[in-house]
């Protein structure tokens, strides 16, 4: 089977490096200008230059989102920005404005142009138009496409396709929702989305409320398309995109690593995996997920099963991410770790390490920064020392074993 691109999100330099270490073929990031997700940390120009150099060492590509729907004042500095992206070695920009595409073609012709999902491309004729008029190299398909439609679009146009496989989903067509604008005056198409679709609404039939037991809401469950990976590869889709530039380092590491293993196993065997192997990979992917999931549109237009109707949907926040490794002393067989979530002595840990199978051990003792032995770790970002029976590497991730 042909190789496909695993495309990871990253909200800052640390998370981008994590995504690359854990097996992403490409990482998409946002600069501090021209990008959606204004609440993601986003990259300075120095960060972009650094991550391009870092990615090059791993044979990884960097894509930059230039995907806001711009107002006139947003074009200021755009040309200089695009020229710098090209100079730093960015492979592609992801755009939702035809004007930005035209400017990019003029001033930074080496940059690939990827048509953002904000443009909601749902058929091959639309993709051909974007190719012919704006020189688009790839279209990110709208999340509203079914598997059959993805197959047909990919077969019917001579342009690369990219499909989402995991992460948050707009319940509305991307780029065509201004609920946030109306509710909060924050422009959803310029990074200010307040996720007003997830709020609660009274629903009236004329003057009679029909939502008295349960208010109307329309927040979508996250996409989880592990079951579709084989079909998407078979369909000829070039890039498999994971959403989540605002997600944590732990999410990035665990989800990217798990999809890396899943994709590689399919590519190696050249056939669909057994139910047992799929169950294993799906369990691994969901270790990093703390939200409810659905299959999106891949198996048809989703109904009530895809919507989160109950409030406080994040109640089951995942506390599995315990620490990152700062250093390992091979002589003493101890590691210095930086904590995240609480844990106790005698808890079982699992190590996520790039390119290695997961390993487990039990924590027999914990020493704090003053050298005192403690029974419980409760403080986030504390530096602790623990014994570990095998070698760890800096930036390895420790999570609760299950």
């Amino acid at each position, binding site marked *: 089977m042909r190789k496909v691109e695993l495309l990871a999100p990253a909200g800052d330099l640390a998370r981008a490096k994590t995504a690359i270490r854990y097996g992403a073929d490409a990482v998409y990031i946002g600069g501090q200008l021209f990008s959606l997700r204004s609440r993601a940390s986003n990259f300075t120009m120095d960060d972009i230059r650094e991550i391009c150099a870092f990615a090059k060492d791993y044979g990884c590509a960097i894509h930059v989102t230039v995907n806001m729907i*711009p107002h006139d004042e947003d074009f200021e500095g755009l040309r200089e920005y695009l020229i710098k992206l090209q100079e730093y070695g960015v492979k592609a920009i992801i755009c939702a404005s035809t004007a930005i595409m035209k*400017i990019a073609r003029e001033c930074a012709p080496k940059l690939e142009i990827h048509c953002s999902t904000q443009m909601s491309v749902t058929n091959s004729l639309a993709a051909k138009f974007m190719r012919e008029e704006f020189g688009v190299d790839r279209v990110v398909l709208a999340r509203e*496409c079914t598997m059959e439609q993805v197959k047909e679009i990919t077969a019917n146009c001579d342009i690369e396709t990219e499909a989402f496989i995991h992460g948050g989903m707009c319940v*509305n*067509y991307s780029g065509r929702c201004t609920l946030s604008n109306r509710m909060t005056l924050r422009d959803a198409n310029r990074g200010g989305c307040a996720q007003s679709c997830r709020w609660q609404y009274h629903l009236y039939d004329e003057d009679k409320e029909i939502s008295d037991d*349960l208010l*109307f809401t329309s927040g979508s469950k996250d996409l989880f398309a592990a079951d579709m990976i084989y079909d998407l590869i078979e369909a000829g889709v070039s890039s498999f995109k994971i959403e989540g530039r605002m997600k944590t380092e732990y999410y990035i590491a665990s989800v990217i690593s798990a999809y890396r293993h899943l994709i590689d196993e399919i590519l190696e065997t050249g056939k669909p995996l057994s139910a047992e192997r799929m169950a294993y990979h799906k369990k691994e992917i969901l270790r990093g997920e703390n939200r409810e999931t659905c299959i999106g549109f891949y198996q048809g237009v989703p109904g009530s099963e895809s919507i989160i109707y109950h409030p406080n949907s994040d109640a089951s926040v995942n506390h599995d991410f315990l620490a990152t490794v700062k250093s390992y002393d091979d002589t003493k067989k101890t590691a210095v770790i930086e904590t995240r979530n609480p844990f106790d002595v005698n808890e079982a840990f699992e190590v996520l390490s790039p390119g290695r199978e997961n390993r487990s051990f039990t924590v027999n003792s914990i020493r704090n920064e003053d050298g005192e032995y403690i029974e419980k770790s409760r403080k986030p970002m504390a530096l602790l020392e623990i014994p570990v029976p095998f070698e760890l590497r800096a930036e390895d991730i420790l999570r609760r074993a299950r």
Partner: protein
Amino acid sequence: MNGKLSITCENPVLFTEYRQAGADEVILALKDSCFSPLKAYDKEEMVKLIEEAHQCGLDVSVLMNRLFHENDAAKACENMKRLIDAGADGIIFADTALAYTAKREGFMNRMIFQPETMMTSSFDAKVWHDLGTQAVMISSLLTKEEVIHIASCIDNGGVNVHGYQMMSVSGRPLLSAYSDHRGLYPLKNKGNLFLVEEKRDGKMPVYENDYCTMVFSDYIQESFDEMKAFMKAGVKRFVIDSWMLKETCIKDTLRIYRAYLDADQTEDMVRAYRETYGELPLSSGYYEQKTVR
């Protein structure tokens, strides 16, 4: 002509009255082709309606603003060609598949690009102007100054001056899903449904058809105070969305915009209109309030 006054129409019997009230054009929705709650007509009905409207002295633009899927994009393009052949004066679209076909067939000058939320800069408007479109509809999310600026940069700008504005469109049957979840009666293709946010008061019309669920603004856009400036800036297309408005209100609305376009006296008409329809949630929308990032 100072600009074309166009209005959505759900009842062809009213063609003559709309013409008399000042409309230059009616917008008719094509079945299976719209993100719109308007009553829609199939292709052959549309062919007849185009002829009828022309006989009344009205142009016809066909609303085809859906995003088409791979299995129905080609059919949509065929329908569009048939309607162009039948004399449709414009095709209102959002899906670039239609532009692809129009360019190949040589009728880009009939195409009216209306990507709703997406046309927010003069740079993007210029791109679509230069592609040879008949009109580029400027987003209703902009301030008055932004609309004026964009319109002054092209010679084919359009503005949705009046009516409820679409705020979101989902490919999912959100009302049916909610109804299923709650065990309620069917809510698809049902009018007079409204959403009211838990901590706010505005009533937002919501409608689900076979292809989408749409939420509309809790206000009716009104642009009387902005008309002179828009005309001076060179706006060429003024659109009234009549959905949910009563017939007398629609005709009164048409008369006022017509008066502006004809440079007639409007002060008394506007005052009377606001008194008569004071219960409606008329608003200047985003003209005086700029969204932030």
